[in-house]
């Protein structure tokens, strides 16, 4: 089945720094989404981005479907950005990566 790899697994940054999270996938996909999981476990939708580039405030994402990767950019990080970021893809099944755990220090 399709493999989804996220990198880095952990990232510690100072408040105000920028970060780039990567999601690689091993086969063509119909969907790709980025989520932020809050401390209570809720998955918060960030981007639905099977291809192309989108921006929402300090966050932006780019998916290059032909090269099978997606990037999530976080600019001017805030402590509230801390948490786990997941990408999820779908072809015949919905597969999540293992996530990137982001720690933003004040």
């Amino acid at each position: 089945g399709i493999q989804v790899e996220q990198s880095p697994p952990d990232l510690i940054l100072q408040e105000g720094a920028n970060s780039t999270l990567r999601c690689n996938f091993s086969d063509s996909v119909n969907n790709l989404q980025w989520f932020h999981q809050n401390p209570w476990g809720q998955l918060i939708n960030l981007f639905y981005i099977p291809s192309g580039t989108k921006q929402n405030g300090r966050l932006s994402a780019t998916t290059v479907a032909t090269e099978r990767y997606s990037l999530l950019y976080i600019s001017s990080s805030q402590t509230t950005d801390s948490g786990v970021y997941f990408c999820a893809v779908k072809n015949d099944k919905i597969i999540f990566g293992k996530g990137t755990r982001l720690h933003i220090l004040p």
Partner: protein
Amino acid sequence: DAGVTQSPTHLIKTRGQHVTLRCSPISGHKSVSWYQQVLGQGPQFIFQYYEKEERGRGNFPDRFSARQFPNYSSELNVNALLLGDSALYLCASSQGARTGELFFGEGSRLTVL
């Protein structure tokens, strides 16, 4: 509009018991999918249903089953509970079966003693 709702939010069971988890999708969404998330890992796909038919199944034993009702709500059933079934169970809804953005509920946290 209400988002995806799941019940119960928390429950405790003992080994060997049975559990039923419930999910109501966003109004107008016809697809529901279920996931298991154990501590420290990403969600693992269990089932997807669309228009009351199973459209996908993950690598889970037959103790796990699900169904979707005519109003598009869904139940996940787990029989003969094991300690390893302790996890956060997440439900997501989407408009379509193959494409469409997933929206998640807050989850049902199951503890098996």
